[in-house]
């Protein structure tokens, strides 16, 4: 009898606890807002957030994406107004630094232990150079190279080219077979920076030139830089008809719908292509040099990071979420779902193409020139490169003029050039 009574009490208590638990948690529940420019990744982020919320009852996260081209303005104005989200999807390098310098971001290096295991190179994109502190957890590494359609290559009996002339032969063969060799267009200037990021490093000599130009020992009027631009122009006959009018989404559709055999593109396209056309089989190779033994490079950069608004009302909850984003568990989930290279150490991409890119990156990677080093002042190296290249492609400027304009523009603020 006694025992029975105790059982009953226990059961009642348990029932009570179960009944009360949500109420207690509900009272303390915090909602974090998370702003991003990744409108394409809404579904994936909601899935990641669900995983986090399952582990952290009491914290809810709302993912709010903005259009890529308007995100910076919207974010900057909100932060200046003293509002903004709790969790911020940050751009990298010069895109992040002004926000950190203005004091809008919470430094994370002493609060997120996992950051100590990250590759120091990968943290550069989230570091404020003035105080040397880290303000974000890098989320992805991106590379820029050639993506090609494996089915079309097999159909035409084409192989990955080992030299520049082989590349032109491949392009010629695709053109003869009625395919567009390269999906790339020039309507939007920034896609030309990607174009340059794929073709350039092999011809300007990768990290050697990069280090010289960053140190101010070489300039953008260096023959190596000009040669890289001239090599881009050699591909013009293999771009779509009317390529000056072909914008970014057109490029994506051309490649994903198998109308084009190759595209000079970032690794971040893999996920998009898989969504647009699940049957598409993609291969990768770096742009080859003149001879097979010349080193071939791909450009690498840290895409951005996750940071915390210094004004957040829920610092503890925000830190819990950021620690989750720095975890191996998240890194693996990120890589598998979005088909991008996670910056979290120790993650292994499941996707074979991505695994190949990681291998290429480790062997033949070089920093993405303008984005990693010349976005810290105005006019930025990227603005200049994008628009001057557009001028060259439109036939308005010579390569020499464009190089001189880029040099003049960057030298106006970049101290090693002054």
């Amino acid at each position, binding site marked *: 009898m006694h025992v029975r009574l105790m059982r009953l009490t226990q059961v009642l208590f348990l029932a009570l606890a179960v009944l009360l638990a949500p109420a207690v948690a509900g009272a303390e529940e915090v909602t974090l807002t998370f702003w991003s420019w990744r*409108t*394409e990744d*809404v579904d994936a982020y909601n899935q990641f957030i669900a995983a986090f919320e399952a582990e952290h009852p009491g914290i809810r996260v709302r993912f*709010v*994406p*903005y*259009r*890529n*081209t*308007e995100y910076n*303005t*919207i974010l900057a*104005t*909100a932060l*200046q*107004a*003293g*509002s*903004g989200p709790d969790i911020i999807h940050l751009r990298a390098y010069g895109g992040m630094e002004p926000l950190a310098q203005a004091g809008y971001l919470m430094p994370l290096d002493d609060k997120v232990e996992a950051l100590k295991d990250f590759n120091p190179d990968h943290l550069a994109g989230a570091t404020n150079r003035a105080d040397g502190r880290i303000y974000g957890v890098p989320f992805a590494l991106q590379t820029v190279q050639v993506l090609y359609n494996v089915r079309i290559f097999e159909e035409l009996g084409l192989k990955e080219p080992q030299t520049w002339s082989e590349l032109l032969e491949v392009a010629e063969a695709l053109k003869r077979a009625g395919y567009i060799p390269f999906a790339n267009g020039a309507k939007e200037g920034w896609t030309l920076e990607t174009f340059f990021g794929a073709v350039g490093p092999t011809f300007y000599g990768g990290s050697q030139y990069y280090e010289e130009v960053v140190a101010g020992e070489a300039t953008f009027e260096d023959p190596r830089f000009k040669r890289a631009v001239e090599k881009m122009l050699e591909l013009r006959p293999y771009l779509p008809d009317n390529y000056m009018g072909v914008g970014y*989404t057109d490029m*994506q*559709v051309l490649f*994903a719908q198998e109308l084009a055999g190759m595209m000079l593109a970032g690794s971040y396209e893999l996920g998009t292509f898989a969504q*647009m056309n699940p049957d598409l089989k993609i291969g990768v190779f770096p742009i080859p040099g003149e001879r097979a033994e010349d080193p071939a490079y791909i450009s690498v950069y840290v895409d951005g990071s996750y940071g915390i608004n210094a004004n957040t009302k829920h610092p503890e909850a925000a830190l819990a979420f950021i620690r989750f984003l720095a975890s191996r568990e998240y890194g693996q989930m990120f890589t598998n779902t979005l088909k991008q290279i996670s910056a979290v150490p120790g993650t292994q991409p499941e996707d074979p193409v991505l695994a190949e890119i990681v291998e290429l990156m480790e062997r033949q990677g070089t920093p993405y020139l303008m984005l990693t080093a010349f976005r810290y002042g105005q006019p930025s190296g990227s603005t200049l490169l994008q628009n001057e290249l557009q001028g060259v492609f439109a036939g308005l400027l010579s390569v020499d003029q464009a190089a001189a304009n880029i040099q003049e523009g960057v030298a106006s603020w970049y101290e090693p050039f002054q």
Partner: protein
Amino acid sequence: MATRLDLAAERKATVAPRRWRAAVGKVLIYGGLTLLALIFVYPLFLMVITAFKSTREIFLDPFGLPSRWSLEPFITVWRRANFSTYFRNSVLVTAASTVLVLTCSSLAAYALGRYRFRLNNALYIFFLAGIMIPIRLGVLPLFLLMRNLNLLDTHWSLILTYAASGMPMSVFLLTGFFRTLPRELEYAARIDGCSEFQTFFRVMLPLVRPGLATVTIVNFVPWWNDFFFPLLFIQSDELKTIPLGMTIFFGQYMTDWGLLFAGMLIASLPLLLLYLVMSRQFIEGLTAGAVKG
């Protein structure tokens, strides 16, 4: 006199070929007008039919009628893009701005149109000068002002901006209306014991109702369609108006053409229907500003 008779005779002689020529002229004129109408409307027709098509269909048969008339793309757009919220916000902002501008401008116009005081003309010109100057050029200070007033990311930032920028044209139009009202009405109202405000509100304001309608229409269209200020002032998704919300949606579905066209159609429909239903008022309202100048 002689010349005129000659002319008349000549006219009679050439009447037959003239009639024939007039007929040809008419055909040419109607032909030209129809061609022009096609230029204006065919792109919109394409927008409508494309909204019902799949991307593949758009590719293969851009001009043909869609193979199925399903409302699915519209439902998808409505759900995924939060259109009901955007729509409500647009209505709210436009309506509140209209009320505010009608109140402030009718009061000011009444003072300028009916009272004699020293600064009358100077103030009238002060208001009028705003017609020439686009408010956008002051957007930077305006932005900081809204930030300091803690109004960024609220509908108030838009309402106040719109109402302020609508003042010049509204004051100009309403002053004109008030000036045409006969003096006797005022005297009669005063004799009846109305205060100044009662005279205005009970007697004079109802008489300029057409003017109020004109002011509403002149301001309504640009505010409803404005993209610039929401782009800068509004961040929260739940506060966005249709034009801003639409660009977000377009960024997201740039490769899904059918959905894009469906979204455009939904966004354009309210004003289009309003125009088709009350085109006369629309036209009179919109042209008033330019013609009265």
